[in-house]
């Protein structure tokens, strides 16, 4: 009922391809993530789904309404938070919220229940101008503004970009609560670690190519090679040496370890260990690990 169905949507800006025949089906009440870097067409897709842009080809529906024909009805039923938190910098927190409420013909009081959990965090600052809020606070206010009319489907375009890790976790906790209220949520993010908070995700690449769609668990399981985390005392030389190693298929830095895949498996590990020792690395540990979303993304790129 409140799902989103996208069929073969393509969009170009001049010679630049933003989306390439994207098809997605997002169910009623699902929390769906579009994961991909800047330039993967996430914003374009949101604008098409919120009726702000017309696709070059393909069709899509939101809540069963056609994005081209049923423009007005869709606009009544969706909430949209664009990438740059679109608030009026010279209006206070409260003025922003009450303005957006009245735009949708409602009031803060009418829908206070829905936004309460979020709004109480910024309510102490309700007389402060939005322009004077920090990133995390602006983000919460923008979410309140997008929710104040009780939308059936919520579109959040990179709500956590530039927001610190703690605020990001809090933000996703809020999305969980909204999901439990039955709101369908489509959210995009460049942070791979946020993928696991979604019911399902689509991995998008530059030029709007969809790499895969699945549950985060499903995507992780599809990583079909053994993956190793390698650590040693000198991490950067280790990375270079691992890349030089003849048995290496790929090697990327992942925080405190390097994630390594090999051309052929098991027997090479012992060989690698002695190779690294020979090269003078100390405290070498090699450990078999499960792939994360980021591993899968890099692997598919």
């Amino acid at each position, binding site marked *: 009922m409140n799902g989103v169905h996208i069929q073969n949507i393509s969009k170009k800006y001049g010679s630049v391809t933003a989306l390439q025949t994207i098809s997605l089906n997002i169910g009623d009440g699902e929390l769906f993530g579009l994961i991909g870097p800047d330039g993967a067409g996430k914003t374009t897709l949101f*604008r098409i789904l*919120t*009726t*702000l*842009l*017309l696709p070059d080809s393909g069709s899509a529906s939101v809540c069963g309404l056609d994005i081209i024909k049923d*423009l*007005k009805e869709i*606009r*009544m039923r*969706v909430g*949209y*938070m*664009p*990438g*740059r938190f*679109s*608030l*009026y*910098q*010279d*209006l206070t927190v409260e*003025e922003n919220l*009450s*303005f*957006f409420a*009245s*735009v*949708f*013909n409602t009031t803060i009081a009418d829908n206070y229940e829905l936004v309460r959990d979020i709004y109480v965090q910024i309510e102490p600052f309700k007389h402060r101008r939005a322009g004077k809020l920090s990133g995390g606070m602006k983000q919460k206010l923008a979410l309140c*503004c*997008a929710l104040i*009319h009780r939308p059936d489907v919520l579109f959040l375009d990179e709500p956590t970009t530039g927001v610190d890790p703690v605020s990001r976790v809090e933000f996703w906790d809020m999305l969980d609560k909204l999901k439990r209220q039955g709101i369908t949520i489509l959210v995009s993010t460049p942070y791979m670690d946020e993928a696991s908070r979604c019911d399902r995700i689509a991995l998008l690449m530059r030029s709007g190519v969809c790499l895969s769609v699945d549950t985060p668990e499903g995507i992780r399981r599809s990583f079909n090679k053994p993956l190793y985390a390698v650590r040693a005392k000198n991490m950067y030389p280790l990375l270079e040496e691992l890349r030089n190693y003849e048995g290496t298929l790929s090697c990327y830095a992942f925080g405190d370890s390097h994630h390594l895949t090999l051309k052929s498996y098991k027997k090479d590990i012992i060989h690698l260990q002695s190779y690294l020792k020979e090269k003078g690395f100390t405290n070498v540990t090699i450990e078999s690990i499960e792939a994360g979303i980021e591993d899968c993304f890099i692997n598919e790129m």
Partner: protein
Amino acid sequence: MRQFGSFIRKEFYHILRDKRTMTILLLMPIILIILFGYAITTEIKQSPFVVLDNSFDTRTNQLIEQLQASEYFTLYSKVSNVEEIENLFRQGKIRMALVVSPTNDLQILADATDPNEAAALIQYAQAILSSQLSTFNFQLSTHLLYNPQMKSAYNFVPGVMGLILILICAMMTSVGIVKEKEMGTMEVLLVSPMKPVYIVLAKATPYLLISLINIITILLLSRFLLEVPIVGSIWLVLGLSVLYALVALSLGLLISTITDTQQAAMLISWVVLMLPVMLLSGMIFPIENMPWILQIISDIVPAKWYIIAVKDVMIKGLGAETILKEIGILALMFVTLTALSVKRFKIRL
């Protein structure tokens, strides 16, 4: 309706909180009036004049020579009757006339439609001829046509009103709308049930109000500081101003539909609106003296019609029935521009 009300309230917040812009908007008419009233004068070079000599005295020729010798005047021709002078003034061929009566009275005539210029011409002529006048004992009387009290304010007050209204209604409205596009808030507004026409109306309302305040400021200043009486109906002047403001608002709206940045909106407002108002409305340069191509262009400058109508009502004291043509043209412009911009206003990005 509550939607609309709160939108207008928001617009007022934007304007009231931007103290600097607000101050400029309210002070501008005062500064312009003072600037035009006291500071700006016109320079005179090579002004053509005619002579009507009824005395048949050779000394008249010496007067002519004296004037010719200066860089300010050139003789256009000698004439034989007053009607001829009148005609030449009307055609804009001459700017001054010397009339010597059979009783050896010297009269200097100037066209005071542009009072600054007329006053300067007469001053210059008197200065040049002063030595002659004492020698020849002529009696001097000056006479100004059309604007006997010689108030330049008669000319520029309507002009300043035309300028201010365009500036505030068109420029500020277009910048205001484009700012929402730039900030990304337009995206959110579009994805809401708010009708685009409300967005536009709400943007325009506060500026309409501010410009009315400005018109009243200008009228008060011109009445009590420059002592220009408002001869005709004040309500008619205000009504005309509202109509003209609506034209300006629709122009601003049109500009906002074709630009994406505040800078571009500002620049286009300047080039397309401000400059024509200053140069082609008859405010500074008389339209009659322009090349025909510019005269035609001046017909599509709304300010021209507004200034004509306001002069007729304010200074000549004429009623609505005499300015029906101007009202009609302005109304037509408003309808056309509004229709065009509503059609162009994108409901998508």
